[in-house]
Structure formats: structure tokens, C-alpha cells
């Protein structure tokens, strides 16, 4: 924790232009991104696979995605003090997709992802040091999508 405070403080001194390379607060969770199986990815990222389900996490994504290469996903965490939001796409070769670390009172992120096939989207939220998960199934349309 001290290291983070120190880094944040030094950043506030005005080195925004030097943000990269190498002043990231935390390290890239490479092993989680390389994992081929969801339990492995979760173990690498969070050190556990035992995560309780919670309906307080809202996942907004289309039921049927017309373009598998651009599936919009909006994630809202209903927890106060949300520390991180992670997104795992069950059907992809490397399921671990995104990991957002939040340092202020934030609870919403949105992005667009690729999906290899119809599958579940898993969202893992860490709030007050406790992990929560929720999932949502997305069907990938094959007929009208730009398969390239």
C-alpha cells in the first residue's frame, strides 16, 4: 500500500508526460491473460476460484451479437468501494479479457470485445477486498456478421 501512495504522490508532482513507460502502479497480469482455462485464469489473477455470485453486478450486453468482433459490454458494479472489475469471456481461446483497476469512487466501465463463439461473459468485481461474480450469456450471430 505504501508503494502505491508513494507512486501516486510522485505522479501528482507533475510527470504526466512520463506516465509511460514503466510507471504503472501494478504489473500486467500476464499469466492470467495467457491461461487457457477459466479456473487457471482466476487463480492467476485473484489467487482463488471460490467466488460468490452476486446480482448486484449488472452486465449489459446484447442477447444476440450481430458482429462477433465488436460486442459492446457495459459493466456496472452495485458495490461501494469497487476496487477492480474484470471481464472473462468463457468461449475465447484466452478467456481472461480485461482487468480494470479503479482507484477512485468508480463503478462503471464499458468497452467492446471479440467473442469467438456463443458463450458466457463472466464479470468479477472486487469490492472491499471481497470478490463477487456474475455472468451473462451472449449469442453470437453467424448469419449477418462480418466474419473475416
Amino acid at each position, binding site marked *: 500500500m505504501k508503494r502505491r501512495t508513494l507512486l*501516486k504522490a510522485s505522479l*501528482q508532482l507533475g510527470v504526466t508526460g512520463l506516465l509511460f513507460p514503466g510507471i*504503472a502502479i501494478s504489473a*500486467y497480469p500476464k499469466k492470467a*491473460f495467457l491461461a487457457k482455462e477459466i479456473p487457471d485464469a482466476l487463480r492467476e489473477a485473484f489467487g482463488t476460484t471460490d467466488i460468490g455470485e452476486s446480482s448486484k453486478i449488472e452486465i449489459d450486453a446484447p442477447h444476440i451479437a450481430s458482429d462477433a468482433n465488436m460486442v459492446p459490454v457495459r459493466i456496472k458494479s452495485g458495490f461501494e468501494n469497487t476496487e477492480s472489475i474484470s471481464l472473462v469471456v468463457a468461449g475465447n481461446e484466452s478467456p481472461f479479457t480485461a482487468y480494470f483497476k479503479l482507484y477512485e469512487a468508480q463503478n462503471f*466501465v*464499458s468497452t467492446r470485445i471479440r467473442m469467438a463463439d456463443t458463450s458466457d461473459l463472466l464479470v468479477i468485481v472486487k469490492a472491499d477486498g471481497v470478490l463477487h461474480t456474475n455472468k451473462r450469456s451472449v449469442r453470437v450471430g453467424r448469419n449477418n456478421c462480418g466474419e473475416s
Partner: protein
Amino acid sequence: MARTLKIRAYETDGQVIVKSVINHPMETGRRKVKKTGKKIPPHFIKEVIVSRNRRIVMEAFWGKSISRNPFLSFQIPGRKGDTITISWLDNRGNTDSASAKVR
């Protein structure tokens, strides 16, 4: 390098909504050149750092499953006139950064 970042930020009720698009190919390493059958090597953004008034508010770590020309939107507390800075770093060490004022 041409500009790669577009950022829009606006405030309502003490919450700043930021929307941004990064121009980036986000190659997964699985796509092939049709004619030759050669694989296109992976080229994707690994890290995005967002700061508000020079203070880091979010770090995003991305894998290859993020779409081409990634879209990123999020909400942070803040007010009009704040400066939002977004920087990215890809797996080849390329990087870019841009700022926008909250409106």
C-alpha cells in the same frame, strides 16, 4: 505518429462520463493473410492508464479479446474543467497519450 486517441468527457451531477476511442489494429495473432496463409503477428494494447488532474484514477489491462479500435467508457467523480489524460501501451512498446478537458 498520427493521433490515436479521441476523448470526450462531460459532467453531470458530480460524475464525469468519459468516452474514448483508440485507433489501434489490435491483432490477435490468430488472423492470417489470405493469400499467403501467414499468420499476422499479435499487436495489441496491454495497458491503458487514465488520470484526472495528474492523478491516476484507473488502470486497465487488456488481452487480445478487445475489439479493433478499442472503445473505452467509464465514470469518475469530478467537475467541469478537470483534465482527463489517457495513455496506452501496446505489446510492441508503442505508446501514446492525450488529454481532454471535462465539459
